[in-house]
């Protein structure tokens, strides 16, 4: 395993009386596709917020490339780490193209106009997410799945070596879900970028993630290569479900088969 990109040490975060993250330590290696999995409310989204620096930890620390996250100027951090959150509100009638161009914000000086390479990055991102034909539309007029792909395009245009994705396929049909994750995988394999994605669908996690990070009640439960960490035992411990994890030739990946509660002897 190469030297860690992120070093997270004894991290904690609280919302009022609730400990969302509770003494979590973790290292994240560069150039891999990491999946974060765990039950609702286990702190997955909070962990991403702490990794992009939009929240400050209550205790412990997050280091990126050896430096504490809060030593980075905001704009420099935005050139290194891109976040695609779960919600994509946009409150004024900006077009899709303008929305994706916002991803170039950390690269364009304050009073400068977008340069050719910024516009090229926007075109390429629109193309990669298959939303080029929507670019003149208003963001607010799009469907949930279209909005999600535009938000992903904005993060691609940001051109950061680290991509944090919060349930990137939650609004997508299976066809677009596979396409989006394949794009993310290509960024990892061909360009050496690092993807950390909160994954709800364990079969998609099994198919695309190099490593999985299991969170439970704000703590790290297990972490490791997908083939070793994603097991019947870990799924029972973390989610409390019965499941079989097996290689499937047709899928070309491991698949997770769940047992219906009370469905079998």
């Amino acid at each position: 395993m190469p030297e860690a990109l992120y070093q997270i040490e004894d991290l904690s975060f609280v919302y009022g009386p609730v400990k969302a993250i509770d003494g979590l330590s973790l290292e994240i290696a560069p150039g891999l596709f990491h999946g974060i999995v765990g039950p609702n409310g286990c702190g997955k989204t909070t962990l991403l917020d702490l990794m992009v620096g939009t929240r400050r930890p209550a205790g412990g620390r997050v280091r990126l490339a050896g430096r504490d996250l809060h030593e980075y100027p905001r704009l420099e951090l935005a050139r290194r780490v891109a976040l695609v959150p779960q919600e994509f509100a946009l409150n004024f009638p900006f077009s899709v193209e303008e929305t994706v161009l916002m991803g170039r914000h950390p690269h364009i000086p304050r009073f400068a106009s977008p340069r050719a390479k910024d516009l090229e990055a926007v075109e390429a991102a629109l193309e990669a997410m298959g939303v080029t034909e929507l670019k003149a539309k208003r963001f607010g007029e799009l469907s949930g799945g279209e909005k999600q792909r535009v938000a992903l395009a904005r993060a691609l245009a940001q051109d950061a070596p680290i991509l944090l994705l919060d349930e990137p396929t939650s609004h997508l049909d299976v066809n677009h879900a596979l396409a989006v994750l394949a794009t993310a995988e290509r960024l990892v394999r061909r360009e050496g970028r690092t993807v950390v994605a909160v994954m709800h669908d364990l079969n998609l996690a099994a198919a695309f993630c190099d490593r999985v990070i299991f969170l439970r009640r704000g703590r790290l439960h297990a972490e490791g290569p997908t083939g070793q960490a994603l097991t019947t035992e870990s799924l029972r411990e973390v989610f409390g479900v019965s499941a079989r994890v097996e290689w499937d030739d047709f899928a070309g990946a491991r698949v997770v088969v769940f047992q219906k509660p009370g469905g079998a002897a």
Partner: protein
Amino acid sequence: MPPASHSAPPRGQGLRLTALTLALGALVVAAAGLGYIRIGPGEVLRVLGSSLPGLSGLGEGLDRLLFQVVLEVRLPRIITSAAVGSGLALAGVVFQGILLNPLADPYTLGVSSGAAFGASLALLLGLNFWGGATVSLLAFAGAALTLLTVLWLSSVDGRVDPHNLILSGVIVAAILSAGIGLIKYLADEQVSIIIFWLMGSFVSRTWGDAALTLGASLLGLAVFVYYARDLNILALGARSAAALGVETRRVRLVLLITASLVSGVCVAVSGIIGFVGLLIPHLMRLLMGPDNRGLLPASALAGAFLLLAADTITRAALPHEVPIGVLTAVIGGPFFCYVFRRRQMERGHA
């Protein structure tokens, strides 16, 4: 075929800003000529031109009375009303952009009432510790305190809920108007001054008022344009904006303080003039698109145009001066209902 874009191309935006500037310039000349003494545009331009260094020859042969009327009586009032219109429209754009609510403006947020309360208090107590700026200072303090209270009232779990915002603003404004009522009751001799000033008016403005409001509006414009791109990105919500490199806390704080200051100065000088900050940004978004880099200067120009036009009408066209705050409320109130109704319909469809 070039793709159609909802945002106007930069060239089109430049043309529109130029057109707005020319319209405002023409209105200034017309307004300077209208009134009890009518003065033709040519003479107005000669009077204005002759006050510029090196051009004093332009004024030769003109009646000295014209100089008196244009430069001492009308121009301060013209500049004050235009600057107040700009300031209120700019504050509207910024409040809407930060609070993510298209119904937010200094009036609906209660900020104007807070400023009026502070200013009434200064008038009642005859406070004078900062000279002529004392009323403005108390108006700003009232505006800022009101904004803080409204934000606190409308926040859930430390985050401002845009849906509660206007309701909180109306509640706080209602309490403040009761307070202003009490001040009026206590004011005795000052009461007519306070009442007339509260209704909003540009009667007998001095060069001091003009300088104060123009300074505040220009300062506001400079600060707001500096942060215009950050304000665009804040439309994505604070979380996404921070992840894109926007210093969300600092940007919001600076913009909210500046917008309160601008609203406070406007109210201190001219009383409560409602709905300009709602009407103008909405119309300018239709003309210029949502990008604040074009929207802010366009709103400043259009706000100036609207209030100067309204003030000129009450001054020169109506048989009696109608307080301008009454005039804008008569136009702006129904407009608020229209925007509110449309938002409800959109939410119903979503």
